């Protein structure tokens, strides 16, 4: 099996990389507690001054397909609920998504996009009986990754 070969051969890579990633030598620690409080205080200030804009950390590619997925801020019966820092969004595909993996993938991609709104864009569309999720790297202007899931 090719995957197993990769896993086995990876075991033979240069020792300096094994040492570098040693789990007992965690290079970066969690941010100190005070930073969390500082971040919360900063958020409160923003709210108090009413300058929080509604962020849409993603864009949707739906080239004229009326049956395509829809992003809304209202719960849809078949929607994938996605809680982000800028609000809760529901992705409705017009059909129930059977695949839990698809839900998880889309959610994690969205979280990442929200963290780097200028770097990544997610495109969702139908192709036959499949839902296609495409991640676009805005900086490189190319497709970073594509995954298909059954409807």
């Amino acid at each position, binding site marked *: 099996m090719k995957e197993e070969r*990769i896993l086995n*051969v990876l*075991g*033979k890579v240069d020792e300096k990389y094994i040492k570098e990633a040693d789990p007992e030598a965690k290079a*970066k620690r969690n941010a100190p507690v005070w930073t969390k409080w500082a971040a919360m205080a900063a958020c409160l200030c923003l709210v108090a001054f009413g300058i929080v804009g509604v962020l849409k950390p993603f864009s949707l590619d739906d080239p004229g397909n009326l049956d395509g997925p829809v992003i809304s801020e209202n719960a849809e019966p078949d929607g994938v609920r996605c809680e982000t820092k800028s609000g809760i969004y529901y992705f409705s595909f017009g059909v129930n998504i059977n695949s839990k993996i698809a839900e998880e993938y889309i959610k994690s991609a969205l979280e990442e996009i929200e*963290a780097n709104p200028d770097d990544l864009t997610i495109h969702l569309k139908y192709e036959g009986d499949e839902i296609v999720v495409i991640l676009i790297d805005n900086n490189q202007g190319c497709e970073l990754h594509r995954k298909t899931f059954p409807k």
Partner: protein
Amino acid sequence: MDDKQIVDLYWERSETAISETAKKYGRYCHYIAFNVLHNDEDSEECVNDTYLNAWNSMPSHRPSVLKTFLGKLTRNISLNKYKQLTAEKRGNGQVPLIIDELHECIPATESTESIIDDMVLVDVFNRFLASLTVEQRKIFMRRYWYLSPVKEIATDYGMGESKVKMSLLRSRNELKHLLEKEGVSL
């Protein structure tokens, strides 16, 4: 006791070598074995086999870094044990997830070239790792060498799980592109 002294004990055929190794690196080896096997009893067996293999290889071998030498032994023994358990339908741990993820690294186009040698592939992997940023590389190695769960990597490096997953996704893509570019058949 420092590593040189422990290695000397092996070379002197002193059984204290095993207890000193267990004291200093037992937890590290157990961590690797447990990520593969997800079972304390099986992991302990692999760690004991690691000591036995170390005993059999020293002398004549003198590892430059004892810790990674032991880690490599544990990883190999545990993956072999995993294969055996899978055959008995008792497999568990991170391996099935990792196998699924690594599927994305396999070049899409099958060329007519013959399957390359392990040593050549190791060289490609080393160059691939050198091309990554330190953070990307650490995350990649934690996942695919140490077989650490994504959640744990995220906690250890103080980042979100989504960031870890995204970093792994990018790395797998880069590895796939490199393998394709070099016409590597697996």
